[in-house]
């Protein structure tokens, strides 16, 4: 990937810190990053923790899941159930918000978040 050359990887936490099929928030370089352990599919995702709708730091506490024929992975904000794609960050429930997504990798039981 071209991206990997321009980003810095930051250690976030250990894999067991993030509950299976759920999320938790890590503080990295002053940013609140929501990290999701999509254990059913063996996938990991990271997005901003802020829900753009009411500016609440809550996405890491939301329920994750998938939608549609392509099984797009998503998270639902616990406040008003706005849902966002974990891949593209796009709002899937009809609003025009887009949230930031971060590159994520797991090595030796440790989770790293990529930042530019």
């Amino acid at each position, binding site marked *: 990937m071209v991206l990997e050359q321009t980003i810095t990887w930051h250690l976030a936490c250990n894999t067991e810190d993030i509950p299976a099929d759920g999320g938790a928030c890590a503080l990295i370089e002053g940013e609140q990053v929501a*990290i999701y352990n999509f254990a059913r599919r063996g996938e990991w995702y990271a997005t901003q923790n802020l829900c753009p709708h009411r500016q609440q730091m809550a996405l890491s506490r939301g329920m994750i899941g998938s939608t549609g024929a392509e099984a797009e992975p998503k998270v639902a904000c616990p406040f008003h159930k706005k849902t966002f794609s974990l891949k593209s960050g796009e709002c899937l429930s009809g609003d025009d918000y887009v949230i930031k997504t971060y590159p994520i990798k797991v090595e030796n039981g440790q989770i790293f978040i990529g930042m530019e």
Partner: protein
Amino acid sequence: MKKKIVVVGNGMVGYKFCEKLIAKDIAKKFEIIVFGEEIRPAYDRVHLSEYFAGKTVEDLTMAPTSWYAENDINLILSDPIVDIDREAKTVRSHHGLVKGYDYLVMATGSGAFVPPIPGVEKDGVFVYRTIEDLDLMQNHAKKATKGAVIGGGLLGLEAAKALLDLGLKEVHVIEFASRLMPRQIDEAGSRVLQAKLETLGLQIHLNKNTQEIVGDGIIEAMQFADGSRLDVDMLVISAGIKPRDEVAKVAGLEVGIRGGIVVNNALQTSDPNIFAIGECALAHHMIYGLVAPGYEMAEVVATKIIGGEKEFMPFDMSTKLKLIGVDVASFGDAFIQEPNAQTIVFENSAKGIYKRINISNDGKYLLGGVLVGDAEQYNMLLQNTKNKTILPADPEDLMLGARGGSEGGASGVMALPDEALICSCEAVTKGGICHEIIENKVTTLDGIKKCTKAGTGCGGCVPMVKDLINETMKSQGVFVRNILCEHFDYTRQELFDLVKIKGYKTYNDVLDHLGKGDGCEVCKPAVASIIASLWNEMILEKGNATVQDSNDRFLANIQKNGTYSVVPRIPGGEITPEKLIVIGQVALKYNLYTKITGGQRIDLFGAHVSDLPEIWEELVNAGFESGHAYGKSLRTVKSCVGSTWCRFGVQDAVSFAIEVEERYRGLRSPHKLKSAVSGCTRECAEAQSKDFGIIATEKGWNLYVCGNGGVKPRHAELLATDIDSATCLQYIDRFLMFYIKTAEPLTRTAPWLDKMEGGINYLKSVVIDDVLGMGETWDAEMNLLVEAYKCEWKEVVENPELRKRFTHFVNAPKVKDPNAKFEPMREMVKAAEWK
């Protein structure tokens, strides 16, 4: 070479024209340039007052600027058109931009009409048209206490609502005429509306002519022609609208004497290449000041430009709106009277309800009418008027609703002809909606909204659209199954039975065996609730924590700034002084805002997620347990003090309330459960508004079920009379098990009973006569659940693994969320207002 369309004005109608043209212009033959005067793209002006009730600019925006870009529309904001050169076919903007056009669409809308009263220029005097006006009002209102509105019409009353929302202590409405809303409703209706609004805190002054606005630079008072004077520090002028026709006038287009750009049935102005739509257009000698005809005009011009044929015909001006919570509607010919028609009037001044229908002299057709205070029948009445439906023998049934019988509103929808206009904002007919349901298998409200746009305007037709979907599917022989979501092809009841038979105890087991995909925020909490209802195990274990709704996952209620509230159980509302002191000490230590709840408990707000285990450790050590305020489960059993102290009490209400609360605490159900016990018929505990309520009699207890406060208040119905305590608990056991087994997710007991065939009589036969033969099974199941109860918070406090999950930052467990902000309020704190 593309043809150029310049749209002057970016309001609701100007936006709608773009939307419609884009949809029709498949060959992309047109280039669109839009000039807007305001700094932001078109927003929903109809719901402007909701800005003060919490809606944001984004919520109100029709489409973001990215939408215009995606559709190749050149949107130029903050730059009104100041000149049209009809010879050269160009327009010039305020900033000097010159653009050529093939077609020019004037959608300049209207401005507030400000009468020439001396002093209107003073500070504190506002008009109510744009978001900027609202921001200015909001600023000024912070230091104002007494406000007034000039104008008692529709817009004036909207503005008065805005002043109430802004928190002004006194709000006055000043009307020049002798009554409110003279254009829409008749005199008797005005009277009822006025009385109702006065009870809601508005002070209404009729026959008042404002002579001068007094004050030294800033408004201090209003002086009236009759010599009287009113001290105010804020004034909104909402005396009417004036079409924005000034540019058209300068360009030599024909305008009306009292304003408005004159157009023909094709909405062409006196220059055939220039159209006018919306509130700036004078069509059929009138200004159409509603959004629905504006949208129809947009449709006509878009069709015409694309090469089709369509004319704008005189448009129905029926309206229904909610003014300060009061329904007001008028439809068809609202004012026609004898000898040209017969009228039927219903008035209940105690409730503030007035209804009038006008029917043809032969008694066959509905011609129009007025509704104040209750407009539930508006949609059906309007449809009957428009479609000239032959009236039933007792036409008053249409206005009052059929009494005594069980005839629902749904059969009414199916009786309408296909041409019946269901959504007047978007001009969608019944036939159009049914076509999507039958031919394209669109069977959800969201789906219908997407493909027809019905229900996306004012939203008033949404209940009819829902009825149409259900009834059409039934008529197609489709058995309507409310399946859980895309991941489970089962109804909740089917899933409940399957999970029980198979003995599944985790969400993943259920999904693997009975569902597909990865689950979502709909099925996860629903399945979690079923598992909890069946087995009553700790909800945060076995990997079930992440399928709980946020409140259940953290065993607390999330609040506006991301902190949580803590509610210890106080059974029956009885609490010792020692325990009260502990609550006070905990609140002081963690800086929590404390409030007595509606259910006789104490709520502690503003707890950081990382403080929750410590807070609960102290509470548990003092003998408290979880109050389950976060769960879809039993909340409280309220009680009055009963026969132990009260001189009227006939039974010990508090002791029984504690027994009931301790029996059902922690019981997970499809929705929350509330209960109460009153010690005598005076009913101080308000048991008849609860899911199950108990009222003492001389001989024992009366048991009421399926009451509700909330959005749709409803009195509970009497299930059993004069029963002893043991029988009462047995009936409640069976009632609750039946509800838990059969209700849809998130359905309270009241709507559950509403949907039950046979209603309360059937429920009685199940609970008391045991017609299903389930009584003993349910008794045993409930006893198991009661025995399995454990306090969730005690378990977390004692389990280091579970405690670890209560942090905001996994990599910095001691750090609290810096975004959780508080503001001082009286002697305590409140959550910072969200944006």
